[in-house]
C-alpha cells in the first residue's frame, strides 16, 4: 500500500498535566552498609560510593563498597546459616519464610516502585505495574515449591547445593534479585548477592524486608560494590553455585574463572532478538508489540526486540505507524505516572548508546527519532529507529541496550528465518501473524530461548527463561529454575 502524505499531528492542543508519584513516604537512608549475617554493617575498608538518580544526576545515597574481606565474611555467614538452621529446617518452614517475603514486598509495593524509579530511571508505570508485582510473584511461586521438590524431580532426591553467589544487573534490580534469591532459598541454599553499582537501593530495601521477615541470620547476605566485588563472590572458594545476569563479556570472564572448579553456574547474558512481522499480522497491534519490544524500560532489556524484520509488502505502513506511535510516547520524569520512557540508567550507558547512534549513521543507516523534548539534566535518549541497515551493520549485530531499533525487511519465510538466526545471540524472538500454522513453523526454526507470538516481553514466574549461544547457559524461572539450585541424587 502506498502511503500518501496525509500526516497526523500529535502535538498541540490538549496535553496531560504532570502527575508525579509522591515521594513523601519514601525513606532512603543517607548511607547504607553491607547486609551480612542479618544486619547492616560498615565495610572493612570504610569505602563508600554514590548512587545517583539518573533523571537529575542528584545523589540519592552512599553505599558501601565491599572488599574481599567483606565478601569473605558474607560467604562465611552464608555457610554458617546453611549448615546451621537453614538446611536443617523443615522445607515447609522454609516455604513460610519465602511466602512472608512475598507478602511484605506486596505490602511495601509503592515504596519499592518509587525507589526503583528513583535509582534506576525507569518509569513508575513500569516499576509499579511490572517490576514489583513480578518480583512478589516470583517469591510466591518458589515459596510454593519449597516443600514439593520431590514432585519437581520425581523419583530423585533434590539436595541443596550450599552457598549461592549471585550477581545481578541494573536493568531490573529488584526483579533480578527475586529471580535469583527465591529459587535459591526454596531449594534450601543460602545466598550472597551483589546488586549492580548503579542500582543498589531496592536490593538493600529487600534486605530490610528480609530482616523484618525474621529469616535466620546469614541466609541472605547482600553486599554492594562494583566489578571487583562481583569477581570476589564468583571466584570465592566457599561459593557452590554462581548465578550471573549481565553482559556477554563479563559472562565469558566468569565462565573462564569457573572452568575446572566444581561450581554449578547459570549465565543469563545479552541478546539481539528479531521481532518478525508478517504481512498478514494485525498491524496496529503489531506496532504496539514493536514499541513494547524495544522501548520498554528504555530498551534496557536483554530480551528486547531490538531487530525488527518486517515483510516488505507492509514495511512502509508499519514504519509510518511506528513513527506516529513514537510521537505519542512521553519521555521524561520517571516518577510521572504518564511517562512511557524514563531516563537512561547511567552516563556510561548513555555514552554507549550515543556511540551506536553515530555508528549507525556512519554505516549508512537512516536514523529517525521522535520529536519529543528532553529534560535539561539527567541522561536521556529519544526513541530511535534505523532503516536502511543490513545484517553486516553493527547496529544490527551488536547489543545496544537502549531505545534503538534496527529495521530490515524480508520477502520470504526463509529469508526471515535466516536473518533472525544470523546472530551470535539467541535469547528471545517474536512472531506476528494471523496464521497459527505460521507461528508454529516459525517458532520451531528460531534458535532462541523464549519466543513470543503476537505479543512481546511477557514474563511469568512459571515460565523458564534463558538463552542459546552467547545469550547464556541454563534456565531461570519455572521448574527449570529449580534445577539450577539442586543436585539430584537417586
Amino acid at each position, binding site marked *: 500500500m502506498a502511503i500518501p502524505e496525509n500526516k*497526523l499531528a500529535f502535538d498541540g492542543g490538549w496535553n496531560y498535566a504532570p502527575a508525579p508519584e509522591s515521594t513523601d513516604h519514601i525513606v532512603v537512608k543517607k548511607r547504607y552498609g553491607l547486609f551480612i549475617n542479618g544486619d547492616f554493617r560498615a565495610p572493612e575498608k570504610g569505602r563508600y560510593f554514590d548512587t545517583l538518580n539518573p533523571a537529575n544526576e542528584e545523589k540519592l545515597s552512599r553505599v558501601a563498597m565491599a572488599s574481599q574481606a567483606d565478601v569473605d565474611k558474607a560467604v562465611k555467614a552464608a555457610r554458617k546459616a546453611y549448615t546451621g538452621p537453614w538446611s536443617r529446617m523443615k522445607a515447609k518452614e522454609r516455604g513460610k519464610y519465602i511466602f512472608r517475603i512475598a507478602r511484605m514486598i506486596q505490602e511495601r509495593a509503592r515504596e519499592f516502585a518509587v525507589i526503583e524509579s528513583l535509582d534506576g530511571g525507569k518509569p513508575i508505570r513500569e516499576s509499579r505495574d511490572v517490576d514489583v508485582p513480578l518480583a512478589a510473584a516470583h517469591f510466591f511461586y518458589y515459596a510454593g515449591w519449597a516443600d514439593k521438590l520431590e514432585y519437581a524431580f520425581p523419583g530423585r532426591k533434590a539436595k541443596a547445593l550450599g552457598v549461592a553467589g549471585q550477581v545481578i544487573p541494573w536493568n531490573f534490580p529488584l526483579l533480578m534479585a527475586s529471580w535469583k534469591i527465591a529459587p535459591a532459598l526454596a531449594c534450601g541454599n543460602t545466598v550472597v548477592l551483589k546488586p549492580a553499582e548503579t542500582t543498589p537501593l531496592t536490593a538493600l530495601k529487600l534486605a530490610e524486608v528480609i530482616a523484618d521477615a525474621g529469616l535466620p541470620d546469614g541466609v541472605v547476605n547482600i553486599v554492594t560494590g562494583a566489578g571487583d566485588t562481583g569477581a570476589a563472590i564468583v571466584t570465592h572458594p566457599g561459593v557452590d553455585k554462581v548465578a550471573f545476569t549481565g553482559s556477554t563479556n563479563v559472562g565469558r570472564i566468569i565462565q573462564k574463572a569457573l572452568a575446572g572448579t566444581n561450581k554449578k553456574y547459570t549465565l543469563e547474558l545479552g541478546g539481539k532478538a528479531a521481532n518478525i512481522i508478517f504481512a498478514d499480522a494485525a498491524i496496529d497491534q503489531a506496532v504496539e508489540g514493536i514499541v513494547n519490544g524495544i522501548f520498554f524500560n528504555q530498551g534496557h532489556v536483554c530480551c528486547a526486540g531490538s531487530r525488527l524484520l518486517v515483510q516488505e509488502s507492509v514495511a512502509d505502513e508499519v514504519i509510518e505507524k511506528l513513527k506516529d506511535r513514537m510521537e505519542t510516547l512521553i519521555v521524561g520524569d520517571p516518577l510521572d505516572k504518564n511517562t512511557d520512557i524514563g531516563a537512561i540508567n547511567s552516563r556510561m550507558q548513555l555514552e554507549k548508546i550515543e556511540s551506536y547512534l553515530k555508528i549507525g549513521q556512519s554505516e549508512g543507516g537512516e536514523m529517525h527519532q521522535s520529536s519529543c523534548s528532553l529534560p535539561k539534566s539527567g541522561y536521556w535518549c529519544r526513541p530511535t529507529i534505523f532503516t536502511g541497515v543490513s545484517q553486516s551493520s553493527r547496529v544490527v549485530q551488536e547489543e545496544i541496550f537502549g531505545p534503538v531499533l534496527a529495521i530490515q525487511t524480508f520477502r520470504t519465510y526463509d529469508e526471515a528465518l535466516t536473518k533472525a538466526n544470523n546472530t551470535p545471540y539467541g535469547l528471545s524472538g517474536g512472531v506476528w501473524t494471523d496464521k497459527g500454522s505460521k507461528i508454529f513453523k516459525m517458532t520451531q526454526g528460531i534458535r532462541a530461548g523464549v519466543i513470543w507470538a503476537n505479543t512481546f516481553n511477557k514474563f511469568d514466574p512459571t515460565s523458564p527463561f534463558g538463552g542459546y549461544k552467547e545469550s547464556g547457559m541454563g534456565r531461570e524461572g519455572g521448574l527449570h529454575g529449580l534445577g539450577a539450585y539442586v543436585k539430584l541424587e537417586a
Partner: protein
Amino acid sequence: MSLTAVKTPNRMPDLGRVAAVDEVGVDERVARFQSRSIKKASKVEALKMVLGMIDLTTLEGQDTPGKVRQLCQKAIHLHDAMPGLPHVAAICVYPTMVGIAKEALQGHDINIASVATAFPSGMSSREVKLDETRMAVAAGATEIDMVISRGAFLAGQYAHVFDEIVAVKEAGGDARLKVILETGELGTLDRVRCASVLAMHAGADFIKTSTGKIQPAATMQVTLVMLQAIKDYYRETGRMVGMKPAGGISNAKLAVHYLVMLRETLGAAWMTPEWFRFGASSLANDALMQLMKQSTGVYQSADYFSKD
C-alpha cells in the same frame, strides 16, 4: 474500451485487504489509555471538551414534545451556575421530534441529529428507509444517524450494505451522515473493522458504534478499532471521518479516557466536536459534577444539576 474510466465517487472497498485485528492486543492498548493520569488543568479542559462533544440524546418510545423541549433547553444551558461552559454539539432524537427540536433550538448553533432508517433494528425496506431520511431532513435535521442492515452484513451481503449507505447519504443531501454499525451485534473486532471500512468508503461522515438499544454498546475496544480504521482511511484518501461512540458512556472519567485514546490515535485534528461525539444522556451531568468538584473541591448533590 474507453481509456477514460468513469471514477465513481464511492467505490466498494476490497474487504479482503482490511487489516486483521488482534483482540488481546486491543485490550492491552486500551488498558494503557486507561492508565493515563489526567489531573488538574488538563482534567478541567478535558471535561469541558467532553461537554462540547455530547450528542444529547433521547430515543424512547415514551418521548414527548415536552421532554424534547426540556432537553433542548439543557443543550443550550448546561449549567448556568458555572460560567464559561460550552454547549453540547447536538440533540439526537427520533424523526417525529425533529420539528420540535428545531423550534426549541432556534437561533442556536446546535445540531439536530435524527435517527433514521428504521432505527434501531434497520428491519425495513430500502424505500421506507430513504423516505424516513428525507422526512427527517425536511423537518430540519442537520445530521442523520442511520443504522446498517446487520442481517445483510453478517450474511456477507456487503454490496447490499454499501449501496444502502450510499443511497441514504444521497437522500440526506447536506446532512452529515453518521453510520451506526451496532457493534454489539457484529460479534468480532475483525467485523467491526470491516464494517467501518465499508461505511467510510460508502460516504459516511461519521462512524458510530451503537444504537444504545443493544448490549454491549460502546466500548473502548470497539472504538479503538474504529479509530484505527479512520486513521488508515485518512492516510489512504485524505478524507477525515468522525467518530461517535454511543451508549454506555455515563461517567466523565471514562469519557476522558476516550479522549486520551482519540488524542493518541488520531491526534489533535480530531479533538473537536466536528470530528468526535459522545452519544449519551447522563454523561453531561457527571461531567458537570466533576467540573464543579474541580472548582469547589467538594462533590455536590445530584440535585443541584438539572435532570432532563
